[in-house]
């Protein structure tokens, strides 16, 4: 059968449709694989894959033993069941009022076996020691939730401060609005500086300056996030559609008003998305920077971890997880509404 292409008129040989992939792309691919192979062997990646494989095999009964699976099981057993109740020895509570217990709380008798030496018979004797314990069934959960609330407050304030700080930074760091090269350079370099120092390090220094507590945490998070927001705000300003801006420049509206009416409405959805991301990130980071004493749930986490109270650590982790999950839902909804 004759191909129909024979009927088409001859076109110029300049028309050539090349394939999307060439030897160059293949070479780049191979080079990337080589880099991965080299760094992978330095980072013990083969061992990682082997041990993960072993652990997976162990979990379905294919492998005899797996140190990784055993380690994970140990962690799991110490974290769960999580600690929800608060148990306190009654004798340690000052001004304890037996007739006026806190809500839902009850008193339990805890019996512990003790062994002590009888000095007369020189025999070991076992006895039973009874301790009265006040059990508040949701007591520890409440403590953690209060700490989580504090963490959320830290994250909220850090986000607000970051936004306020990054607005002027973004204005000067947007090449089409910055008054001159020097301001542009200064703004860009401060943004890079802010972003390059990790929150945890900033928090360490700020704890030295402001002492333990939320101030150091809020500032550390705000400074880092301002670097992030400043960069992204500025880039959106630069990439915004020029046409509305031109029409306002043409009537002599001035730079600030042009920015407000010609750029901001265009970039608002992205800005909201960035802010929500920063809020989300700040909540997660606020839990971490507590580790260096900058307030919030991290401080509690570190204390419990150092005392080997792993079931308490479990509670804290579960609460953080649920909070981040809820926050994610919240930001997804807010974004949808605003778009």
């Amino acid at each position: 059968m004759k191909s129909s292409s024979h009927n088409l008129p001859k076109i110029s040989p300049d028309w050539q449709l090349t394939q999307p992939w060439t030897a160059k792309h293949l070479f780049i691919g191979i080079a990337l694989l080589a880099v991965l192979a080299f760094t992978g062997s330095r980072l013990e990646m083969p061992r990682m894959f082997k041990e993960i494989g072993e652990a997976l095999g162990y979990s379905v009964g294919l492998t005899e033993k797996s140190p990784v699976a055993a380690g994970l099981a140990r962690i799991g057993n110490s974290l769960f069941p999580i600690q929800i109740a608060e148990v306190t020895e009654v004798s340690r509570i000052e001004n304890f009022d037996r007739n006026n217990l806190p809500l839902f709380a009850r008193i339990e008798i805890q019996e512990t076996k003790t062994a002590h030496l009888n000095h007369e018979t020189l025999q070991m004797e076992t006895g039973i020691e009874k301790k009265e314990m006040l059990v508040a069934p949701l007591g520890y959960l409440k403590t953690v939730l209060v700490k989580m609330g504090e963490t959320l407050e830290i994250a909220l304030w850090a986000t607000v401060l970051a936004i306020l700080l990054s607005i002027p930074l973004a204005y000067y760091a947007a090449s089409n609005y910055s008054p001159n090269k020097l301001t542009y350079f200064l703004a860009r370099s401060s943004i890079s500086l802010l972003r390059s120092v990790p929150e945890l390090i900033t928090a360490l220094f700020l704890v030295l300056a402001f002492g333990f507590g939320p101030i150091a945490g809020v500032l550390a998070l705000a400074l880092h996030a301002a670097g992030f927001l400043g960069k992204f705000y500025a880039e959106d300003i630069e990439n915004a559609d020029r046409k509305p801006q031109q029409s306002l420049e043409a009537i002599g509206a001035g730079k600030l008003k042009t920015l407000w009416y010609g750029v901001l409405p265009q970039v608002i959805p992205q800005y909201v998305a960035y802010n929500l991301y920063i809020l989300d990130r700040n909540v997660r980071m606020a839990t971490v920077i507590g580790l260096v004493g900058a307030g919030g749930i991290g401080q509690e986490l570190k204390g419990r971890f150092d005392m080997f109270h792993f079931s308490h650590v479990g509670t804290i982790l579960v609460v953080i997880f649920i909070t981040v999950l809820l926050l994610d839902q919240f930001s997804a909804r807010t974004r949808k509404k605003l778009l």
Partner: protein
Amino acid sequence: MLKFHSVSKRFDDGTQALSTINLDIPKGQFCVLLGPSGAGKSTLLYMANGLVTSTTGQVEIDGKMLNRTNIKSIRQTVGMVHQQFNLTPRLSVAMNVLSGALPFVSYLRAAVMWYPRALRERACNLLAEVGLAPEHLSRRVSELSGGQQQRVGIARAFMLEPRLLLADEPVASLDPRVSREIMALLRDEAKRRGTTVVCSLHQPELAVEFADRIIALKGGKLVFDGSPDELVAAGLDGIYQLDAPKPTPANPALHVAPQILEALA
């Protein structure tokens, strides 16, 4: 009103966009700059409010020479209508129109978008004049059709109560029927207020129908300056057909213009 004193423009890449143009446009005239794309219409238009600076020569508006120091205050008296409407997409129709009065509004008011009653009334009157309905006020401009968007653009341009209105190909992205509506609207609004209009167009039939005076440019040179009747009499050969491909049956667009001119004459 608007005078060009031997202006010329050479761009950095060496293209000579305009060479020695002298023009005097009196108050209240509806003046069309006609020419194919690349003729220098937009360059000349943008020179009138300093969006493009002339390489040589000067621009005079109301007896004042345009220079670096007075450019902002002069721009605040010159309205502008754009080919792509240049409205802010996510802003409401009302806010887009009000933004036309931004030079007269304090920074605080501009920031909180809280406009004085007089400006709000002016915006409503203008929107009614250009043929929009009250329910359009709170709509985003991106929800409007092209013709409606250009109506908003025209309303915004008149918010300044400009003495001079520059229209850069105001109907180039609209279909022919809507184009005529928009041109008629622009002309009526300008005539009612006595606003001088300089409007660039590439459609000779629209120029002939709506202009008081037609200035034709080709290759950066002035090739015609006169009334529409004179243009019809002179024909369009000088502007369009000298180095354009000859009209062919397969390309009727190229000779549609003379037919329409005959029908109008």
